[in-house]
């Protein structure tokens, strides 16, 4: 267990929040990009493997996707850094739960998704479930 001095606590939770924020930004931007593109089957240029070039080109030329993918890459390295100052048993469930809650809020506010009671309940269950599994 790492020493939990007052200054460290702030640093630990700042890193957890930062990692979660990068994950949320990445996932919301990628979701927005894919929503803009629509069903990828519509981008297929023909039958067979060659037909997949159309969707790949459409995805890779989308600015939101590229920024979102960059956020996910930064998230990976930020996670490695966070794990150097926070115990995995705290970091993993805390980051996962914050990411699920943040994704749900951003999906409603930014993507305009219909996050009804059923979906809020699912977010709550997932957060508690992740914490219990990591217990």
């Amino acid at each position, binding site marked *: 267990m790492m020493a939990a001095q007052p200054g460290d606590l702030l640093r630990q939770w700042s890193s957890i929040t930062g990692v979660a924020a990068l994950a949320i930004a990445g*996932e*919301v931007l*990628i*979701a927005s990009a*894919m*929503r803009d*593109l*629509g*069903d*990828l089957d519509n981008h297929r240029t023909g039958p067979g493997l060659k037909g997949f070039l159309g969707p790949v080109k459409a*995805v890779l030329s989308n600015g939101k996707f590229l920024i979102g993918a960059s956020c996910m890459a930064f998230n990976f390295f930020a996670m490695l850094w966070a794990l150097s100052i926070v115990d995995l048993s705290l970091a993993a469930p805390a980051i*996962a739960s914050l990411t*699920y809650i943040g*994704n*749900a809020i951003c*999906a*409603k506010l930014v*993507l*305009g*998704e*219909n*996050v*009804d009671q*059923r*979906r809020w*309940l*699912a*977010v709550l*269950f*997932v957060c*508690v*479930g*992740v*914490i*219990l*599994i*990591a*217990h």
Partner: protein
Amino acid sequence: MKHALKPSQYAILVAVMLTASVGDTLLSRGMAEVGAVDLQHLGLLWKALFNPFVASGIVLLIGFFASYMTALSWADLTFLMPATAFGYVVIALLSRFWLHEQLSAYRWTGILLIVCAVGFVAGGPSRTEDPASEHHELDIMDSGAGR
């Protein structure tokens, strides 16, 4: 709102649920065989790529990313979130029945909650339709052009 998914879309959801967790498990198993990598032995990372478990794990994680993005093209992010969380359940079940680890009551409760969350969301629509496009579709139906 769309309520019905095509069989191919269910297959993609199953791929989202399974590929990440099984891929992570394979990477973990492979890296345990390769050994600890430090700054003085970065060459081990190159060697790790040729470990069958690591190579299979990377292929599965690429498959996860592809299937996740495909799913996002026709489903809401909040619809997919419980499906990705289901990976925790798969890992817990793999550790119980493949690695023969003991799962505590806490973990079984966590598994139950995530399964319930998947059930809640799966019973609803997969996509929030843009009202503008919905009206446009109705206009086309009214004019008979969509028949």
